[in-house]
């Protein structure tokens, strides 16, 4: 008799363990839900961790107001399916309150403003631990992130002053006003997430599957057109292409890829043969070589 787990089962066990630690160590945890596949997998893992009880923390969505409609539709379906609680933090509200200022100029986006709304939502709900679906394989600055990542009273991350994390003993102690970001799927890769979706038969928003869409080519990425958020610039033309999205960020800054993959199996095949990282199509990471690290220090996801 061999007592060994497959790597997906071992990763699942680790993530469930981390989520249970969060539920046990914190007073008011939350799960940050973006509508992307990683946070969807997180919700399914949370269901397993506490079943047959309901997920003992709310899903928090930071709504930029620039979401794909498919993301919103899926979010509302999932919340109902899980019997979960949803809390929405709105970037629009932050702008109206004057705490966030809309970017101007050609490449303006609401991506950076999410940080303001996120921190406001954490503060007003008194969340002391926010779980996110970030993975260490995504980006260089994330390779050194802890499972339990301590944030000071300003929500800042200090990469030089991280707590050592040993064995599976997670230290969630903090002072009043501080909080934690927790990353239960730290050790998963993009392929692991897809394989898990396949293995567990997890439904996804339609955006992930190949479909016809009107797009424009901008900085080497195909951006969905939109009557308000994505307008044609001089010398740009819109065309209809067969595309899908590898991540589900904001509509104006998330690039699609040309694809015929309309099932999870076909997507896995595509992921396995692709030679570009999934964030390679995100305009927000291309601003500078350290753009992710800079945003994380300021309190980004």
């Amino acid at each position, binding site marked *: 008799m*061999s*007592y*060994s*787990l*497959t*790597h997906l089962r*071992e990763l*699942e*066990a*680790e993530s*469930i*363990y981390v989520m*249970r*630690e969060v*539920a*046990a160590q914190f007073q008011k945890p939350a799960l940050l839900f973006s509508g992307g596949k990683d946070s969807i997998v997180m919700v399914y893992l949370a269901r*397993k*961790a*506490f*079943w*047959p*009880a*309901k997920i003992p923390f709310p899903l928090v969505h930071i709504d930029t107001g620039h979401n794909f409609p498919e993301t919103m539709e899926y979010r509302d379906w999932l919340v109902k399916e899980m019997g979960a609680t949803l809390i929405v933090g709105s970037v629009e509200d932050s702008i109206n309150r004057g705490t966030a200022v809309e970017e101007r100029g050609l490449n303006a986006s609401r991506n950076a403003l999410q940080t303001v709304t996120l921190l406001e939502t954490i503060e007003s709900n008194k969340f002391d631990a926010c779980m996110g679906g970030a993975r*260490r*394989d995504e980006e*260089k*600055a994330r*390779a*050194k992130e802890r499972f339990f990542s301590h944030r000071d009273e300003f929500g800042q991350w200090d*990469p*030089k002053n991280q*707590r*050592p*994390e*040993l*064995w*599976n*003993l997670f*230290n969630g*102690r*903090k002072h009043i006003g501080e909080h934690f970001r927790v990353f239960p799927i*730290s*050790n998963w890769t993009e*392929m*692991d997430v897809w*394989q898990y979706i396949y*293995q567990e038969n997890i439904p996804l928003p339609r955006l992930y599957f190949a479909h016809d869409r009107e797009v424009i080519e901008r900085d080497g990425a195909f951006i969905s057109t939109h009557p308000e958020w994505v307008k044609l610039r001089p010398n740009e033309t819109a065309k209809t292409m067969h595309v899908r999205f590898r991540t589900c960020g904001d509509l104006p800054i998330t690039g699609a890829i040309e694809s015929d993959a309309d099932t999870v*199996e076909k997507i*896995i*095949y595509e992921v*396995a*043969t*692709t*030679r*570009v*990282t999934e964030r*390679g199509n995100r305009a927000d990471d291309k601003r500078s*070589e*350290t753009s992710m*690290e800079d945003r994380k220090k300021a309190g980004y996801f």
Partner: protein
Amino acid sequence: MEHLVQDGKFDHHGYLNMELLRFTTAGSVDDGKSTLIGRLLYDSKSIFQDQLEQIEQTSKNRGEEYVNLALLTDGLRSEREQGITIDVAYRYFSTPKRKFIIADTPGHIQYTRNMVTGASTANLAIILVDARNGVVEQTYRHSFIASLLQIPHVVICINKMDLVDFSQEKYEEVVEQFRHFASKLDVQDVRFIPISALLGDNVVDRSKNMPWYEGPTLMYTLETVHIGSDHNLIDCRFPVQYVVRPMSNEYHDYRGYAGRVAGGVLKPGDEVMHLPSGITTKIAEIKSLDGDLEEAYPPQSVTLILEDDVDISRGDMLVRENNAPKTGQDIDIMLCWMDDKKSLQLNGKYAIKHTTRDARCVVKEILYKVDVNTLHRIQDVDSLALNEIGRVKIRTTVPLFYDEYRRNRNTGSIIIIDEATNTTVGAGMIIE
């Protein structure tokens, strides 16, 4: 991932049945550690085109002659500026046989705490030795940490063989040096491989320059080393992590004890004893959303339903009556100190975490500290500074249910926390 694609199809079965191996690499820039990791990622085709283009560009901007594979493992900006690795960085790659997690740690003495951190979850350690210099102080230190943290498998890579003309004599000299020293250590499985990380000899592909070496390549070793027995499957240990109470009509009286199996194999019908009460009961069911399980073993996260109504909460432990862990408040540990602001204080009070149990402790005695370069014991010490390792007696506020670290890494490990700053300041391995 291309390796899992054949004839236009993805090998799902293969992927879904892979094992996970966690390994640590300790070494300094000079040992070629980053080059070795870059080589493993590159030769296993785990690097994406845009990542490769990015490091090609950076190498070019810096005026370097070849693509610097070491850049793949540099994380934070300050590290890039200084050209050193200062933290633990985790890397991922896979081959058709296994998925790998690398805990990449710096090798200098001032980063001992990072090495200890990386080693704490590893199944295997790669220790790099420069063939030109042989076994040096740093080799002692890395091997001692691997032994202290009880990493089950150690692979000594004798690197830069290209710079010693691929000499078998030189290789055997280093092996002999290491064996002599390793007799003082507590490592179960040590292997030696002559490699050139720069040129790729014996990393993924067999070396044509060293026909005298008949052993496996590094990659083959990583893919095949037996890790099935790395967990303790003998002593049943189930630290209760969380009590699941649905409070719904459908599951009105349901009380599930959630946790990660820390040792042994649990089955429905097994008699278990609850600690601290000593009350015995039976496992009624092992629950999961995917259906009831017939058994549970490490490192599974499961939920147990017991036959009798026992008052159980987080921090308690379920064990076997005839194979219980030690229970006590006076514990001897090997302690690695990790705080750069304050040293460990004799008679100092700290918070601790052990399995799912929180407690406090007082440091009663510092027996000795270890010179990590020579393994000599230094007596008459009254504190431990950053990166120092010593044997310490603590007394805890409540009894802990523990095993020796070398018998069970899950029930034998403790972290020590400064109560003023809440920072993790020490990593303890229970001796007795």
